[in-house]
């Protein structure tokens, strides 16, 4: 079956039904292995046991970037190919991305307290992730304020793509701002010297987080498709009971 066949939401739901249990199982196993490995890994000579926070912080930070990439690709799908599942995908990825961004910030500041002596520093990386969190929350709000899913999807797609263009500029300018205002004396979060014993647990945890994202994203997409079905059916029921006021509205992916 070609990629385009999954444009049909019903076929997509059937696929999710088949794939999801396997993905959940794989995700649980990878997490078990990853967590075991990250607590077995040797401690860092500089950061001691706090290096264990890295095994969740770095995957969360990597996921919050990947989630925005998924949203940007979906937005291109919405605007260019008008793929009926693209805005479903973008909309359901936003809360998950916001949650991973929140996790990255949380673990970052909990790691910063023992390492830097303070929960928050206006470090370039932390600051850009904070900006990313605001962008996720803004996108979620934009989606909630418009009740027509098609219009909301297109508006959010435009904003997502503008954000994707802007994110490298924001990162660059925050780096510039940070070098102006702060001496580079802080301990770098993931220094250049990473030992293979620390790298393997990190990689396994990154795979586990990616699988978790896939599972949650597929489940959220399924919910969104069902929500649109409910909405369409309710509108049909309403227009059937008041035939005079029936309005012709665009049908979202259901």
């Amino acid at each position, binding site marked *: 079956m070609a990629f385009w066949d999954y444009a049909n939401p019903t076929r997509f739901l059937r696929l999710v039904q088949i794939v999801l249990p396997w993905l959940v199982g794989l995700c649980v196993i990878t997490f078990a292995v990853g967590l075991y490995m990250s607590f077995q890994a040797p401690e860092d000579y500089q950061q001691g046991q706090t290096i264990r926070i890295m095994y969740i912080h770095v995957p969360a930070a990597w996921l919050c970037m990947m989630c925005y990439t998924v949203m940007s690709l979906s937005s291109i799908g919405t605007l260019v190919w008008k793929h009926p599942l693209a805005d479903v995908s973008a909309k359901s990825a936003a809360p998950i991305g916001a949650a991973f961004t929140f996790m990255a910030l949380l673990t970052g500041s909990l790691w910063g307290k023992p390492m830097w002596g303070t929960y928050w520093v206006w470090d370039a990386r932390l600051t850009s992730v904070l*900006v990313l969190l*605001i962008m996720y929350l803004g996108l979620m709000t*934009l989606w909630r304020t418009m009740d027509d899913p098609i219009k909301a999807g297109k508006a959010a797609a435009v904003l997502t793509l503008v954000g994707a263009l802007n994110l490298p500029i924001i990162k660059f300018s925050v780096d510039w701002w940070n070098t102006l205002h702060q001496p580079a004396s802080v301990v770098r979060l993931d220094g250049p010297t990473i030992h293979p014993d620390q790298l393997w647990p990190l990689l396994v945890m990154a795979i586990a987080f990616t699988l978790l994202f896939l599972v949650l994203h597929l489940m959220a997409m399924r919910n969104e498709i069902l929500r649109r079905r409910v909405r369409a059916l309710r509108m049909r029921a309403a227009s059937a009971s008041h035939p005079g006021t029936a309005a012709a509205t665009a049908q979202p992916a259901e």
Partner: protein
Amino acid sequence: MSGWAMALFKRDLRLSVRIGGSALVGVLFFLAVVTVIPFGVGPDLNLLARIGPAILWIGALLATLLGLDRLFQADREDGTLDLMMMSGRPLELVVLVKCLAHWIATGLPLVVAAPLLGVFLNLDPVSMGAVTATLLVGTPALTLIGAIGASLTVSLRRGGLLLAVLVIPLAIPVLIFGVSSADAAIHDPVPFLTPFLILCALTLIAAVVGPVASAAALRFSSD
């Protein structure tokens, strides 16, 4: 500038200057923000001189955001926006002309008022000139980026607050390079021209991305 663009420019400028006097309200808001800051941080003139450029920039950012929600809303309410979209002119150019008129009506007065407000903040003439120059180059970028937010929220009844939330993250680079080039003119960790030229580049990028994205959003919100 061709005839229709000039006509549109003059119309927008006249509307924004005459009705409501948006230029004056923006400057008044700017003045109010700058007046409030010393009550918050204390009247220490050295401190005020140090953070003065930042205060002026944040004040200008807030004043710009405040006026942005009217950029397309009034035209949408009375149907002018639909006429503009059906007129067959490139919508990107229409947005650019409207932004230009909006900037002259609301952004330029802020730039003119900045040196005056700099006096309150104990800025010396060099930094006063630097801040004014950066505001002159940077505020068009704020208006152009804000146009994206304005066109996304044009159909919402109370879109003003959401607009600010959507636009502020995108405006961070402009703020950073505006303030740091003003700072560079005073106590030079880097030459003034480096951040200033990047600020100019950001404005040029915004002049491309802003109208294109904003026109796309307007088209989608109408069909």
